[in-house]
């Protein structure tokens, strides 16, 4: 009995150290200015990744620790994530960055169902994201509907768009489908730019921020006696969404749906001959991805309070695809890592902003050539 207690304490201590290490790392990385500091950090992160990747025993050890003391690890993680804005309260911009990383995590986990689980190359993320953002903005601004209802409408409209986008999948091969998604993204952009009721190139402004019981998200918040800038409100909201999205992702992974998507990815014909209705599951992946993107769009629209077609261009779709490919196809943790890394890095290398899209393209090619499974490959399902 004493032995068990000892093991438990040891496990908790190690998990505590690991999570604190990650938190401190994130805070320092955010606060680092200048190129040399950032590069050192990247080397450090790269080193940690290399050690983690190379030593499978280490991976298994950490995973088993996590599984063993799951409740503790999760609660501790939550506490640390909640505390993050407190450490950054002197610099609201950094909280904003965390929040934007969260938005990209949401987009990337959504795309993962298609790109990672099913190997459908969907380059229309910007379209579903934009449709959600615009739907929510129009409903909020013109009809005064509350944010909390509008997000569902945004998701639903985007999901319907996803359904339309997915319909051709029943008859077409992969490359045609990718072409269709690229074309679709461009069509949505053109429509947003030209239709009068979307505001055209001027977009939609004065989107009311969300509010709970009279408290507007644009107000500063006071927690535990400390004053936090209004970005913290949005940070907490996005954090909640990220947790929900991550939970959904894990649940799909260990379910008949996730397994079926993988089967379709591996061999479509064998999947058909194993009783799988392939088109139905492909359309499902579109609808789910687009629904989640739509909700994300609504969150974004009500944060920046002004949206225009410029926010929803092809480049964004490419960025999200890069995050999934680099992070790890069909690995929730990998995708989260990829999203955060590829949101924060361009921010740190702001002087190279000109080269951002170019680097994303090069990262995609390099990853596919040298490490096609991504930084964190998919883990096999275990049933014991």
């Amino acid at each position, binding site marked *: 009995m004493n032995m068990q207690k000892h093991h438990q304490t040891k496990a908790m201590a190690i998990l505590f150290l690991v999570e604190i290490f990650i938190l401190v790392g994130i805070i320092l990385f955010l606060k680092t200015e200048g190129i040399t500091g950032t590069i050192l950090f990247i080397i450090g992160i790269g080193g940690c990744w290399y050690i983690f990747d190379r030593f499978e025993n280490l991976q298994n050890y950490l995973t088993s620790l996590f599984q063993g003391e799951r409740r503790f690890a999760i609660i501790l993680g939550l506490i640390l994530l909640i505390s993050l804005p407190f450490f950054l309260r002197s610099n609201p911009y950094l909280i904003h960055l965390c929040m934007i990383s969260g938005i990209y995590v949401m987009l990337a986990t959504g795309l993962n169902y298609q790109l990672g689980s099913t190997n459908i190359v969907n380059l229309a993320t910007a379209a579903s994201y934009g449709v959600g953002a615009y739907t929510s903005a129009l409903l909020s601004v013109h009809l005064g509907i509350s944010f909390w209802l509008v997000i569902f409408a945004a998701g639903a409209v985007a999901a319907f768009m996803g359904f339309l986008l997915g319909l051709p999948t029943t008859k077409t091969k992969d490359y045609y489908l990718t072409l269709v998604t690229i074309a679709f993204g461009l069509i949505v952009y053109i429509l947003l730019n030209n239709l009068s009721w979307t505001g055209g190139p001027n977009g939609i402004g004065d989107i009311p921020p969300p509010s709970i019981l009279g408290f507007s998200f644009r107000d500063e918040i006071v927690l535990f006696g400390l004053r936090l800038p209004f970005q913290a409100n949005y940070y907490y909201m996005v954090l909640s969404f990220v947790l929900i999205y991550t939970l*959904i992702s894990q*649940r*799909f992974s*260990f*379910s*008949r*749906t*996730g*397994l*079926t998507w*993988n*089967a379709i990815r*591996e*061999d479509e*014909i*064998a*999947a*058909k*001959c*194993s*009783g*799988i*209705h*392939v088109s139905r599951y492909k359309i*499902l992946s579109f609808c*789910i991805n687009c629904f989640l993107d739509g909700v994300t769009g609504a969150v974004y629209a009500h944060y920046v309070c002004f949206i225009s077609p410029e926010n929803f261009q092809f480049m964004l779709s490419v960025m999200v695809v890069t995050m999934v490919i680099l992070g790890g196809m069909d690995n929730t943790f990998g995708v989260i890592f990829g999203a955060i890394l590829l949101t924060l890095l361009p921010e740190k290398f702001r002087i190279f902003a000109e080269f951002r899209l170019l680097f994303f393209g090069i990262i995609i090619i390099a990853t596919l050539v040298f490490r096609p499974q991504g930084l964190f490959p*998919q883990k*096999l*399902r*275990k*049933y014991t």
Partner: protein
Amino acid sequence: MAMLLKTQALTIRFGGLVAIDNLDIHTRRGEVLGLIGPNGSGKTTFLNLITGIYPPTKGNILFQGENIVGIPPFQIVRKGIARTFQNNRLFSNLSVLDNVIIGMHHRQRSQWYHAIFNNRFARKELRDAAEQAMELLEYFSRELVEDRYKKAIELPQAHRRKLEICRALAADPQLLLLDEPAAGMDPEETLQLMDDIFKILERKPDIGIIIIEHDMLVIQKIADRVVVINYGQKIAEGSYTDICEIPEVLEAYLGETEC
């Protein structure tokens, strides 16, 4: 005894080429039907027709009395037909266990909303499926059970064949179609394969099996009846010893010394 599968005047044309020509083949429950013929005679095409991958140009396919022409492949599995592939189509990057579980797809119920909202149900169904899959693997192969968390692509060839058969059996079919399961196997592995097929029959005596094979030893040992096709047409039918005497068969297999 009622027919399990019966094709009537089954024909398929690819452009100008007639791959299957007016084929009448039938098989009963509990029977192992061997389908032999030279390469390119249309054997795999026949399987593809039955499983709904190609639509026939003409003719009917009656499975348990019902015409299954025009039914998409995934529904045909639900009707009770499962198959293996000549070139081994496994889900390469998924584990052995996952491959078999996917075979059970049409017998499972959980949908995407269960995954999100009733996760307990979704997980339980998956775990139960894993147990059943284990039981199926245990019945056929100790090694596959040991390797159950290995990726399918990491298995040796003979084990992959076995896994594909297990995946097909996981669908609980009434008719099992095997496409050259012994291809590329050495004599010991072939004996193992024949053992496995007998095991299948033991476990489920009224299952129908159609086996395409080039290895005549396998056909001789396990087929109750043999159909010989050439250029998409049936040229002989009967027991193994019967068809061996027919000159057209020997001619079609020119060069084959064993019969």
